[in-house]
């Protein structure tokens, strides 16, 4: 009986086989397979489920203290070069595997309810399985090269899934933007990878780390170049994990179906960047300058995400910016040299953010009954309100998620965020301050979302407001009605079915409890990932140090919540007048997302179009013009050409053919 670790390669292969089967079925027998909804769903859920079982077996082995294993084979080779592929199982990977399979499984069950009425149900499940497979492959990759392979593949799945509703222009643009922005990051990742390979002759994390250090110490490589290579590689995680300034794709990616937002754009794929930085710790750790850059980028991102989230009216976009902000926290932890803390936040965040997104999906699904299938209406919080009475399960789980992300003990978010802030306090006090203030913003905007959505009275039947929102989005009312499929008959929303409610409830459990695995005085999580670090933490833990820091972050969270209660539950404060009225510039700055999209559009989108257009002009006028001119000069004068141009093609060919034959004969006779 082989151990689970040796079978780790099956974890990505199982969903892949399922995806291939249904994908081929879709191409070959489109109609039949499209009708086989439940069988396909069951097949793919079984595949992912089997992968989940294997992942948990693997995690159990790692918990029991199994040694990490790595298996490689020669994938491509030429001369003395060998590019290797394979898989690797260690504690970090095992944690991620268990996390991804769990959430993927729950999201698939949820999707059965969410996508029930969609024509693309089977296609959706196929993409989901394909994504799971790529993501799991990324986790077990033993070297940078293989990470890059799966890195691109998850990007492709994201492209396919964001553009899932391909008849919507918004989805089409968002999908392309997601892919291209990620390619910009991959540009750096590829170059950095090549550079590191040049410098160290390896793609393996530990080997690169040790050889790079040797090379710098030995003087054969200057420190600056090493840092540059590290930062180039970091561009990959920056794009994938939506770090400033490459975060612009993530909010747009919310055009995809909500289960995707939960799985890919909140819990797993966007965390891959953080995961890669954790994997690269042996490379990054010796270079404090790299760490500082990572920490600063993380901090800018966390402030940016939270500040933009303050003004969002779209429920999903609000959550998306919240994800950006939380990813910033994780990156900050990595920059502080605390990968364990970052990974811990990754895990807790994956659970509660997946739950929040699924909750928002449940809300949107319910809203569609009232306002029709129009994202502009179904996702706008101005039309929601009072949903708690109609959908209690969604409301309660959403509230739990809000408390968790706000960092109120003893829920998950408190422990992980507090650990990051503690680490930041020790490494970079300035960044800690930014993180602390952002914690206050976080609890404010999360509770703002909650109150606007679930409390107060239901505003969904306000047709005047609907028309106004549609007009603002540049869509006519009639068009929306067309898309409504005559669905908008109910006058208030309903709680979603069990397929959607169950995952919410299941996810609520870790959201409440999982933080207790990572208490600073006895962190089981740290003991698994890095026993030395865990011992160090437990040894140096002291209440007098812990309490003030924790107290500060809880206090600022409570302040944020209080503000939200006053403004959006009790309506004692009118923030619109108080802040937006007094500081219109600030409000506009936030509402326009720091103007980054506008800058991107002007500089890169329009710029590249213009450049391409000019190159094409040069090509058709100058380069081709010279050719045509030459042709004209040499041949155009002859009367014969006239005949060729108007004459039969066969005749011309005959001449060419005859010429060649004549040549052969000539050689024959006179040779």
């Amino acid at each position, binding site marked *: 009986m082989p151990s689970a670790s040796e079978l780790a390669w099956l974890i990505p292969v199982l969903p892949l086989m399922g995806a291939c089967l249904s994908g081929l079925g879709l191409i070959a027998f489109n109609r039949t397979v499209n009708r086989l909804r439940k069988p396909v769903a069951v097949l793919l859920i079984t595949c992912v489920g089997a992968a989940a079982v294997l992942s948990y077996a693997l995690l159990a082995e790692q918990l029991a203290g199994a040694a990490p294993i790595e298996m490689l084979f020669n994938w491509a080779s030429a001369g003395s070069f060998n590019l290797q592929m394979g898989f690797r199982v260690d504690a970090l990977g095992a944690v991620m595997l268990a996390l991804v399979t769990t959430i993927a499984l729950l999201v698939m069950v949820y999707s059965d309810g969410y996508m029930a009425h969609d024509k693309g149900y089977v296609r959706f499940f196929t993409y989901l399985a394909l994504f799971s497979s790529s993501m799991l492959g990324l986790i077990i990759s033993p070297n940078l090269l293989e990470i890059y392979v799966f890195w691109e593949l998850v990007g492709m799945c994201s492209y396919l899934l964001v553009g899932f509703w391909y008849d919507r222009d918004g989805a089409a643009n968002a999908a392309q933007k997601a892919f291209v922005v990620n390619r910009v990051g991959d540009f750096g990742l590829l170059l950095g990878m090549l550079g590191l*390979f040049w410098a160290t002759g390896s793609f393996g994390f530990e080997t690169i780390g040790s050889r790079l250090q040797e090379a710098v110490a030995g003087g054969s490589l*200057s420190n600056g170049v090493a840092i540059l290579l590290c930062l180039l590689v970091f561009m990959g995680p920056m794009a994938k994990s939506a770090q400033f300034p490459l975060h612009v794709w993530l909010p747009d990616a919310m055009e995809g179906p909500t289960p995707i937002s939960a799985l890919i754009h909140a819990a797993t794929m966007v965390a891959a960047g953080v995961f890669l930085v954790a994997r690269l710790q042996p490379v990054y750790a010796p270079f404090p300058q790299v760490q500082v850059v990572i920490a600063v980028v993380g901090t800018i991102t966390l402030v940016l995400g939270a500040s933009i989230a303050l003004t969002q009216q779209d429920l999903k976009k609000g959550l998306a910016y919240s994800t950006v902000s939380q990813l910033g926290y994780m990156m900050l932890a990595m920059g502080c040299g605390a990968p364990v803390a970052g990974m811990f936040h990754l895990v807790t965040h994956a659970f509660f953010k997946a739950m929040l997104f699924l909750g928002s999906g449940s809300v949107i699904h319910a809203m569609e009954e009232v306002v029709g299938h129009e994202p502009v209406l179904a996702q706008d919080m101005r039309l929601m309100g009072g949903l708690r009475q109609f959908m209690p399960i969604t409301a309660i789980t959403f509230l739990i998620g809000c408390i968790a992300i706000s960092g109120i003990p003893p829920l998950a978010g408190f422990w992980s965020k507090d650990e990051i802030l503690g680490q930041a306090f020790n490494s970079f006090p300035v960044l800690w301050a930014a993180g602390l203030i952002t914690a206050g913003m976080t609890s404010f905007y999360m509770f703002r979302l909650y109150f606007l959505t679930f409390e107060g009275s239901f505003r969904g039947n306000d047709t005047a407001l609907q028309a106004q929102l549609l007009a603002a989005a540049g869509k006519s009312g009639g068009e929306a009605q067309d898309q409504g499929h005559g669905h908008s008959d109910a006058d208030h929303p309903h709680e979603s079915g069990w397929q959607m409610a169950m995952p919410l409830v299941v996810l609520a459990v870790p959201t409440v409890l999982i933080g207790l695995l990572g208490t600073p005085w006895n962190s089981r999580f740290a003991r698994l990932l890095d026993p030395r670090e865990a011992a160090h933490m437990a040894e140096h833990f002291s209440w007098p140090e812990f309490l003030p820091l924790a107290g500060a972050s809880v206090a600022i969270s409570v302040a944020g919540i209080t503000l939200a209660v006053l403004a959006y539950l009790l309506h004692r404060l009118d923030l619109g007048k108080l802040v937006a009225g007094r500081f219109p510039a600030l409000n506009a700055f936030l509402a326009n997302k720091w103007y980054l999209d506008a800058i991107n559009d002007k500089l890169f989108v329009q710029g590249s179009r213009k450049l*391409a257009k000019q190159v094409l002009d040069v090509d058709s006028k100058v*380069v081709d013009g010279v050719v045509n001119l030459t042709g004209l000069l040499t041949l155009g004068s002859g009367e014969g050409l006239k005949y060729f141009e108007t004459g039969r093609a066969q005749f011309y060919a005959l001449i*060419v053919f005859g010429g060649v034959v004549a040549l052969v004969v000539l050689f024959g006779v006179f040779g």
Partner: protein
Amino acid sequence: MHFPWLSAAILFPIAAALLIPLVPDDGDGRKVRWYALGVALLTFLITVGGYLNGYDPAIEGLQLAERYTWLPDLGLAWSVGADGLSMPLILLTSFITALAALAAWPVSFKPKLFFFLLLAMDGGQIAVFAVQDMMLFFLAWELELVPVYLLLAIWGAKKRQYAATKFILYTAGGSVFILLAALAMGFYGGGAPTFEFSELMAKDFPQKFQLLCYAGLLIAFGVKLPIVPLHTWLPDAHGEATAPVHMLLAGILLKMGGYALLRFNVQLLPAAHVQFAPLLVVLGVVNIIYAALTSFAQRNLKRKIAYSSISHMGFVLIGIGSFSALGTSGAMLQMVSHGLIGASLFFLVGATYDRTHTLQLDEMGGVGQKMRKMFALWTVCSLASLALPGMSGFVSELMVFVGFATSETYSLSFRIVISILAAVGVILTPIYLLSMLREIFFGKENPELVSHTHLVDAEPREIYVISCLLVPIIGIGLYPRLVTDTYRVSIEALVQREANALAQLSHVPGKVVMRSQSPGLWPAVLQPFSPLKAPSLS
């Protein structure tokens, strides 16, 4: 004496093509197309048979060799054979041609002539890759032009005359240099003229002579590959050709340029190659970026894909100039890979045109709602073209990147600049390909298009053709050694020749003494060659 696999692969399709007039004709070409498909498949089987029975990938030298004296006074002989450079391309040729025959199913205008030319081209192109005699190569190269010219000129779109004439003038203009170089090399050194590759390889050409021949051949093959700025025939030819001709143009014809560069410029003229290689690399980067940008701005679907082919060929140039086994191997793989991917994309362009009757992107839009399978096929092939991992394009581009970046022959700064610029292509490629997909398939249906045309989804034949191409694309992507192992030894020998030439260059007394000084062509400022063997920056 073994079975003459290669001669059979060359002569069988040509002989079978000559019999086409005897095929009972019912006017619409139904029987002819089955006949042609059968012949093309048999040819494919012959090449596969040759590969399986007479070809051992572990052997460096020529295999499946046949030699019959033809015109002894001129040193002309029917000499064919295959080594690692030619074998993969011979297989690619017969494979793509068989699929092109299947792609040509709807051809109803003069089907007999069409399939005659298709089969003649099959034999001609296999001959280009298989012949081992430079005069013979020249003949095959020229002969193969005729069918292409006719296929363009008779079955093309509106501007077909212009495109076909441009094609023939360009290529024939380039061929002059092949003839001159062949004659010069054949007669060099006195004695009986010889055009046999193996004997030419043994000749020790002086540096200046090599440079001259190299320059001429570079122009000839640069037209074919194509190298910017010798490329303008290609968008026109592609813009006018029909789908099966497209597949052959993109799938095989362009590869003739890359193959010939490796075979003649690198193998026969290594001393000149050492001097020219940096130029190839620079031209490669120009190809990648220039063509990617033009492709992005193109509004005509066929031309867009045509420019994307040019862009992809840039990697072949960088690989050939990389002085590394991995990079050269990547160039070879890129040729095979692009042969498959290019053919699949052009086939899809043709299939789409059959339905939309327009190639202008502005006149499409929202097509995906009616043609879902077509959408899926397009997406997969576009992703393959933008070098998605798991497909062949990724592996070949990666090999070129890694091979070039680790090539110790070039100075570090040169490698950095080139790598960064080539990597810009990594960003540009998805921009134009995904924009294209978005404009064709995504969004609302274009009411004008829908009202004019009947958009039916992909039929089984089309899905089959694409599947046949996708199997090797994904197979190579998953396990590249499937292909690279067939030519590995030959490429290593080739790179060894380059290395010897490099070593010689640095030992010629009174000339360039150290590699630290830029050899000949290059001003000291640019200095593409590395001053030291070990990587060093500090």
